[in-house]
């Protein structure tokens, strides 16, 4: 091959930013612009959008009912994260110890719920949780309870359903990192005299924390915004921010107030995610 012509500009493998233009444009038109409009609407004082003012914000953040909705939404996200964590870690440890063949079977079982729509999974939970549902009939059949338990339209029932529905989101990142963990580190801990529990808390947990944070972020974000599950299982008795937004915008037609609730939901989810990534700074994995 001939040498490059003298004086020719060196060929640089520069990043071609224009490749990102289609997605960037879509983002600007369908997210950034609506977001600004939403922010603008929130500063109308009345439902008819005739006056500007902070009335909607003030009304939302001074009413104990709405503050409780924020708190309940946050609490639901935290409960979903806690429940999925408690179930996911033991399963991840089992997965890690399984043969590659068994791991493929487990992955299939874990992914299966994702192949079904959230609506169908939610309605399946109604069948399970209802007064004449699977759980109540079993409990009554065993004579453990005389009257059927109220599971639908309760926080417990909703957390149960969400835990199953969101489980893959927690498991997938956790399994990925769990499988990469060097077995020698676990063996070293054991040989140095650490019990299995100590090994879990001192070695396995800290080294898999990044995977847990990724999973917890996904579970928190999707549990707090799970409009369908919250409405169908929670019903009218349990009100969370997504249902409030729907009600204010589609039933009451108070768009400024709905805008405030929307932005509040956004900040609620963001605050949860930021808290988790802040926790990630303490994950001293390297």
């Amino acid at each position: 091959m001939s040498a490059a012509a003298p004086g020719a500009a060196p060929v640089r493998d520069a990043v071609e930013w224009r490749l990102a233009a289609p997605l960037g444009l879509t983002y600007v038109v369908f997210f950034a612009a609506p977001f600004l409009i939403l922010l603008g609407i929130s500063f109308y004082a009345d439902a008819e959008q005739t006056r500007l003012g902070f009335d909607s914000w003030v009304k939302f953040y001074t009413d104990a009912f709405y503050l409780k909705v924020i708190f309940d939404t946050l609490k639901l996200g935290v409960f979903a994260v806690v429940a999925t964590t408690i179930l996911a870690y033991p399963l991840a440890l089992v997965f890690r110890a399984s043969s590659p063949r068994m791991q493929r079977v487990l992955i299939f079982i874990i992914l299966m719920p994702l192949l079904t729509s959230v609506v169908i999974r939610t309605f399946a939970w109604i069948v399970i949780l209802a007064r004449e549902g699977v759980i109540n009939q079993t409990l009554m059949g065993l004579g453990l309870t005389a009257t059927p338990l109220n599971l639908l339209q309760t926080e417990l029932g909703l957390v149960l359903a969400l835990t199953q529905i969101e489980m893959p989101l927690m498991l997938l990142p956790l399994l990925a990192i769990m499988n990469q963990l060097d077995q020698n580190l676990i063996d070293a801990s054991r040989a140095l005299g650490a019990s299995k529990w100590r090994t879990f808390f001192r070695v396995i947990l800290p080294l898999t924390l990044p995977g847990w944070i990724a999973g917890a972020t996904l579970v928190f974000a999707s549990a707090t915004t799970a409009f369908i599950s919250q409405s169908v299982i929670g019903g009218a008795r349990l009100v969370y921010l997504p249902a409030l937004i729907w009600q204010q915008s589609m039933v009451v037609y108070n768009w400024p107030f709905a805008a405030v609730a929307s932005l509040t939901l956004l900040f609620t989810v963001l605050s949860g995610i930021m808290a988790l990534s802040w926790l990630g700074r303490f994950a001293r994995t390297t």
Partner: protein
Amino acid sequence: MASQHTATAQAAQPLTLDGVTHSYGTGFAVDNVTLEVKGGELVALLGPSGCGKTTLLRIVAGFISQTNGKVIIGDRPIDVLPPNRREIGIVFQNYALFPHMTVAENIAYGLAARGESRAVQAERVAEMLATVRMEGFADRKPRQLSGGQQQRVALARALAIRPRILLLDEPFAALDKNLRLDMQIEIKRLQRQFALTAIMVTHDQDEAMSIADRIAVMSHGKIEQLGSPVEIYDEPATLFVNNFIGSSNLLKGRVVAVGPDGYRVELDSGAVWTLASKGRFETGAAVLVSVRPEQMVLADEAAPDRLPVALKLSLPIGGALIHDATAAGGEDIKIAVPRRPGALSTGPGTAFAALAPHARPSLFPATSS
């Protein structure tokens, strides 16, 4: 050094493997291995990958439960103990330092697991850092250390718990060649200083030869030969050991007579040698004669005990000149002769190979392979 007194205070305990067997579904990973490692002795398990040496090490550590047989430290069977109660120090090939902990936290890990106080931990960490000459590295993370430094920390961590047995899993495999000798000396020094009974797993014969008191050569889950490095090298018990340890020339031949000073063997290449052997051979038996390259010499003239060889290539490797040649019988052989300063490689030609005066060839039945 204060550490020397405290460390040598406890007597080294022997480690006994009694008929240890480990089988996977179809075959044996470890097949009825019996091995007695004396107190304070370093035994190397040497063999190719898949020979069962690592499985054996993991059985001793308690990471695998053997199918059969006993592991005994001192006079106490430890098979029923989980790994965390065996008091065994282990150094892994990749060191397995906890990446999220500092050097000091790594070394203190085993002490913390034993519920030692912070003061005791700090004291022992300082002592161990001094022992492995890593003072000043206490607050570093493992990734900030070189391979050799990581290994020193791994040793310090293993020794901090005052183990009864030290297990070394391919301890030098991940090190630069130049560092290996330093670390071999270091490990030998620490093993002596702490009077530790130790087992080292390796596939590298040079490592095993340099620091082991005895070597157990393993193949297919069994110990082929157990002996001192010199015995293993000079008197390989089987053809496998012979071929695995060092390089050797295999010459085909036939026993023509059995005399008081050994077997008279006529080589296919022509020469007749009288060879002593512990093996038993009938007159007329086909045999393989193994001669190390450095136990052969070259001459210019033919003689009854010399075999004609066609020299192909000669390479000056350090102080030796290695001749690559083909024997009259068709075998490829190598002959290493001391190189005179200034001597250059010689070209192709015909020469006559004989045994050096100190040569101790080994005899094997030709049917074994």
